[in-house]
């Protein structure tokens, strides 16, 4: 079980969190005319990277905040966590 540092609550066990996918995906702006390809990239196309990866988790059974977690998808090592409003550098 992973040990995730919630930027709001501190170190917590994985079972307090739920996974939310790739954190680098940006939703297209509302009312913007975009191509099918752009939309499909947003809704469906994911890279499933091996290695370092920024992803979203929600501290569901805690502060309920969505957070950004930099994790190695192969080793599960966690390098960094950010609040929702902090930018990935």
């Amino acid at each position: 079980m992973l040990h995730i540092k919630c930027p709001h609550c501190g170190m917590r066990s994985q079972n307090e969190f739920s996974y939310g996918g790739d954190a680098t995906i940006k939703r297209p702006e509302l009312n913007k005319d975009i191509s099918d390809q752009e939309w499909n990239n947003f809704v469906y196309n994911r890279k499933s990277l091996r290695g370092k990866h920024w992803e979203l988790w929600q501290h569901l059974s805690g502060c309920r905040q969505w957070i950004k977690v930099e994790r190695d998808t192969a080793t599960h090592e966690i390098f960094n966590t950010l609040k929702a409003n902090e930018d990935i550098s």
Partner: protein
Amino acid sequence: MIQSFRLENVGLINRNKKLSFKFNGKTYYGYEGDTLASALLANGVHLIGRSFKYHRPRGFFGAGVDEPYAIVQLYRNGETEPNIKATEQELFEGLVATSVNCWPSVKFDVGAINNFLKIFLPAGFYYKTFMWPKSFWYKIYEPFIRKAAGLGVASIKHDKERYEHKYEYCDLLIAGSGPSGLASAYAAAKNGARVILAEDKSRFGGTLLTSDVNIGNKSGKEWAEGVIAELKEMPNVTVKNRSQVFGYYDHNMLVMSERVSDHLATTKKFHPKQRLWYIRAKEVLISAGSIERPIVFGNNDTPGVMLSSAAKEYLRIYGVLVGKKPLIFTNNDSGYETAIDFKKNGIDPIILDTRKDPQSEIVEEAKELGINIKFSYVVVAAKGYKKVKSADIAKISDNKEDLGVIENINCDCICVSGFWTPTIHLASQSGNKTKFNENIDAFVPGISKQNETTLGAANGVYTLNETLKSSFETAHALSKKITNNDNKISFPNVVEKKSTTHDKFWCVPLPKGKNYKRFLDFQNDVAVSDIEIALKEGYRSIEHVKRYTTLGMATDQGKTSNLNGLQLVSKIENKVVPAVGHTTFRPPYNPVSIGAIVGREVGKHSKPTRKSPMHNWHEKNNAVFVDAGVWLRPRYYKKGDENLFEASKREAKNVRTNVGVCDVTTLGKIDIKGPDAGELLNRVYTNAWLKLPVGKARYGVMLREDGIVMDDGTTTRISENHYHMTTTTAQAANVLSHLEYYLQLVWPELNVNVVSTTEQWAGAAIAGPKSRDLLQKLFPNSDVSKEGLPFMGYMEGDLFGVKARIFRISFSGELAYEVNVESDNGNFMWEKIIEVGQAFKIQPYGTEALSTLRIEMGHVAGSELDGRTIPYDNSLEGLVSKKKDFIGKRSLTKEAFTAEDRQKVVGVVPLDKKTSIPEGSHLVKDSNAPLPNPKLGYISASCWSVEYDNPFSLAILKDGKNMIGKKLFVMSPLKNKVIPVEIVSSHYVDPKGERVRS
């Protein structure tokens, strides 16, 4: 019965407490402190089971966790449990155990014909058997294997024992209480670290209990006892015996199973049988020791052939002789320790040493004691079927390839020592990149991935002095890093015998003309010949060889077999062992009971039970409940001997004629506040929300980004910046997360707060033509007339002194209202509604009637909004705004979603107006079409229409829009039904929706 193999005055057992037990129906005696294995051996019982594949007789091979054979079915405390190792099960008064894998009995085993017929002989047994003619398989092999195979029987009864889970944090978790475990626990504890020391066995001390060593002028055993006693007194130390750390998971999370009561005849009141510990440790020290490895020779699975260290442990700990004519077969000094122990207790052993001329203290000692030692000698084959009776032995050439003349010598046991294999399972599980150590012919931990360090024999360090030294130092350094303390303890003086190098010899060649089975894996019956076949058939990767031959795949995970298997593969492939590599070790290290894994999460504790504030009233009024997620909802209220069908029909009918009341507390409720609340709703729902006036409710549908309907419900504008959203019971939690996602990550600029208020409000739906009259009586001071509270209107009212929210919304399609009060007043509200409603013939109705009402009105719900449908499919396209953008809108332009013949919800009526249509049935054009019959749609929900008194269903049907009036067939292969039906509008009752607006 006399325990004829028990020594007097030797061992750590309690001879004042004699225990009786039964094995295979026969009564025996042992002592407190025995294991089932030691007690059986004390009684001379060596035959304990049959092997898995060939059903060869099986005895004892080890004395602990590494035991591959002695697996029994245990009966304790009115329960039965399979897969119990006799070497681990402690004896208690009245213990009952039986052999497994023997049919009809351990002494006469029908399965043993496998051994002679060799039907199931080769490697790839599982794969090849499936290739046989089908008829042969079903009729002969499968029933035969089913009856003859298996490792015990799982109980089908509810387990009345209690199992617990515990979460713990510590600075250092130390797995194993041998010399390295004790030394490191002591050093770390003295340096102020929070330490958990776990020992798998009942006794602490590991090999210190059986070795002739001296630490600080004490015997190893005395030193161990002293350290443990001191550790137990320290507040920063938790010391646990009968506790096995079996799994090493991510982020230094380890799991340990504590056998709290398994060693007792009954479990004490309020005690668990077992406890599972989830331990998050800053540092982990693995002091799991090593396991002796066998030398491979002919018939090396015969009962009486066992590890030399096991024979020593039975003697030293339990005072039990595993034989009276022991033959010790060794390639290193360890075998001599066992031989000397025999000799000192009046038994004359013979040592066969594969080495030519070893020079060491212990070899000298054995010579001085007059033990018969044969150098450059090997056991060629064990003789005897159910027990070793003699051994064929021979001299072996210096190159270890040629055997001399075969001699037969009498013996009743063969104690084997092929040197030591470090227990690297935990390190490997943690992700450690293990490396091969040539000096000991085994893998040892290499580069750590997590915070773990392996010490002592588990790290390939076999001298006590070095083990203690490195353990003291490592534990001090690690604890210093954590606690910043620097308390060093003085290093004790250590006296031990120096040993010389072992012989790399591991497998005795077959003598000419003989074809003895030489086993590598004793639990799965994998012999040298099986590996040879696998390699001949082209298997190369050790992972493939493992799966094809099942080497190391039994419940013992190859603890005694892995390395010899690797040696063989590397020899045939002409590679070095590290190039072959070992297979991956996975948790659990040792089998863990399902009960321990499940813990307390059984029965009603498996999930929380949510009840509405009116639950007690429902119970008192004969409600029959149904699970709605974790909620319990009344399905119907039973009157007399009504069944579900009759009761729900009565309840639904009463709603259509008079008035009914339904507990809708379980609906998800989300309070939404902030100046941008309207804007959020406008982006989340498919329809327009910016112009909703205060005091009005609106029905809304929300989509996922892929265009699929996520949920529906009504949201009411309570005041300028305050909305009350309802969701379906099932999606309540997901919708909240969904809103939080968009507010926190996508549109943080929106000034809105959302919070779940599901549990803060109790809700009652009042539905039926008389509902307004009832409502007026409930709220005499409010104007609830058609004009005062129009359809989709909202007002606050006073319910006999209780503040209430009144919504004019309808799920049943009737004139209906929903009243919400604070949860604490829920029961009061309900009772008032029932009381005042008597004049209007009110009846409560459950979810079954609720479904009937919504189905015949064509209101879509969870069974249509099933994660596969878009608004159009549910005839909700009218609610999809063309003007504004919203979540998921862009996906609705997809080709499949705009296809002319896109699926759509329709109504389905059986032509005979009698036959009920099973939910989940398929709709087809031709009931006689050849398979696979093209499926046009499926039945999503069925009811008995109370309006028309015939069955009615909803279906999602391809090209539904053009199918109204068509005749199709409903097919349910599961229920074996074919029903001719007509497709009608989904709005079966009141299609214009006049009633809700009345």
